[in-house]
């Protein structure tokens, strides 16, 4: 494909668009069915049936919900900053989608295989706070504003430990390229030598996506629904789907950093027959299940506990582990660039 139509400007444009569609359609279907999976998993854990009326096994439920949301009225509260109020959910959802541009689902199967892939993902996830904070401010509502404040503080706090966990992985890989990060795990997945970092990363990911037990920004028992209390219809749906898209993104990131992306469990015959993208999706689904499992199991943290965990436990621990990892790599001569 080095010559001919697909090397011209127009060809590259069409090819990139086709790649984007090929990634986005399964992703959006995945987001829709994650909402269904969450309700089914929660139901199973709580000995209920969950959605089972719309279509076989209730499989039509996400689309029924989407239709319902589409036909509802978007209410913009009086005194709200109109433009920002409508932009905020688009930011949240758009960023969750944007990040997928660099995620490799197989060897060199990414829309953009850029050299600073992991930094790009970190940058996008650090932008996620804006959707929340703008929504809280633009709603002109006390509860929304409180939720936004909580969320901003929470996301900034846990980004610090996520950054250090990513650094620890980078020290072992010696590259910022996501493809290279996965390929560095051919001998052993980083989940094994860096298990404590995996735990820190996963818990921080829960906080970063505002999921239980860190769903204080929307704590319905104290501040109604937090930052999206004033949202209705499609603007609410975008927030809702954005949260699930962010969950999938964080699971994909966990898979790439710790579970060897598209690599099979072991490089031997029956496992290597299964193509990479299926491995990738299976691993992401596994991490997502833990997200749902945690939600069904743990009660919500109190705000001071949340801050204490982030700053007094995770930050020092991950810093120490980073130093230990770097020291061990140096001592055993395993540093990627000698």
């Amino acid at each position, binding site marked *: 494909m080095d010559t001919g139509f697909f090397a011209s*400007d127009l060809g590259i444009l069409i090819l990139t668009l086709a790649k984007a569609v090929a990634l986005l359609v399964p992703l959006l279907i995945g987001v829709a069915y994650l909402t269904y999976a969450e309700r089914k998993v929660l139901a199973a854990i709580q000995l209920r049936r969950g959605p089972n009326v719309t279509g076989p096994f209730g499989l039509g439920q996400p689309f029924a919900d989407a239709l319902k949301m589409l036909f509802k009225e978007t209410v913009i509260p009086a005194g709200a*900053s109109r433009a*920002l109020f409508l932009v905020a959910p688009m930011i949240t959802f758009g960023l969750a989608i944007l990040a997928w541009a660099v995620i490799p689902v197989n060897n060199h199967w990414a829309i953009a295989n*850029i*050299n*600073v892939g992991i*930094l*790009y993902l*970190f*940058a996008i996830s*650090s*932008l996620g*706070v*804006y959707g929340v*904070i*703008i929504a809280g*401010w633009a709603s002109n509502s006390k509860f929304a*504003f409180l939720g936004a*404040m909580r969320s*901003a503080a929470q996301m*900034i706090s846990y*980004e610090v430990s996520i950054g250090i966990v990513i650094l620890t992985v980078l020290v072992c890989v010696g590259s*910022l390229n996501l493809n290279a990060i996965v390929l560095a795990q051919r001998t052993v997945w980083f989940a094994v030598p860096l298990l404590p970092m995996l735990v820190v990363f996963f818990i921080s990911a829960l906080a970063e996506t505002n999921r239980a037990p860190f769903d204080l920004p929307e704590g319905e028992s104290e501040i109604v629904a937090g930052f999206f209390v004033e949202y209705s219809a499609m603007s609410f749906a975008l927030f809702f789907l954005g949260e699930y898209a962010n969950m999938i993104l964080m699971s994909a990131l966990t898979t790439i950093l710790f579970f060897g992306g598209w690599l099979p469990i072991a490089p031997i015959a029956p496992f290597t027959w299964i193509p990479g993208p299926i491995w990738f999706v299976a691993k992401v689904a596994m991490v997502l299940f833990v997200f749902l499992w945690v939600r069904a199991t743990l009660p919500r943290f109190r705000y*001071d*506990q949340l801050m204490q965990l982030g700053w007094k436990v995770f930050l020092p621990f991950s810093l120490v582990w980073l130093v230990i990892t770097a020291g061990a790599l140096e001592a055993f001569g395993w540093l990627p660039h000698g």
Partner: protein
Amino acid sequence: MIEQIFFYMFSAVLLVSACMVITARNPVHSVLFLILAFLNAAALFVMAGAAFLAMVLVIVYVGAVAVLFLFVVMMLDVDFIALREGFQKFLPLGLTVGFVLMAEIGLSLAGFEASGTMRLAAATHRVAGLSDAASIGDLLYTRYLYVFELAGLLLVIAMIGAIVLTLTEGARPRRQDLARQHDRPIADTLTLVKPVIGAGIAPLPAREDVP
């Protein structure tokens, strides 16, 4: 061709949003325009081949610094009319300061010349085929190590200063002592009563551990 279109698009949005930062009436809108300006600057960095710098710009300035700006500005109770009052009085002063700043930037850019080490470093790293992140790291941790460490030290001092400023002597925060909570026997925290219908519950004995 396409690159030029994108370059002019990003530059135009950057300049317009930079102007909006100082002309927007609402300070929250100002901060949001500032963020837009940062993002466009990052896009220009990407176009110049400095992807690492672009990502660092987004992570540090947009993801952390501007969030704190927004945090503070949102909580301000700004009186917009009072803000406009002294506009004409201070206009000459503001224009003078702006002009001096611009002249300084212009002069320093006109006299700017890449030093020998910079040019050498750029040349050798291009030859060695290192990525931009690798070449920046290579320079920072060898030739500019002391400057880099000094900058880090400065940040630590600033951080300690901020912590000292917010630390209030005497006021004891209410802390949760997990060990003490776990050590309490059940008898201290829980009293089981079987109320008789119509009779109610006899008043419980006063507890000593409640402050």
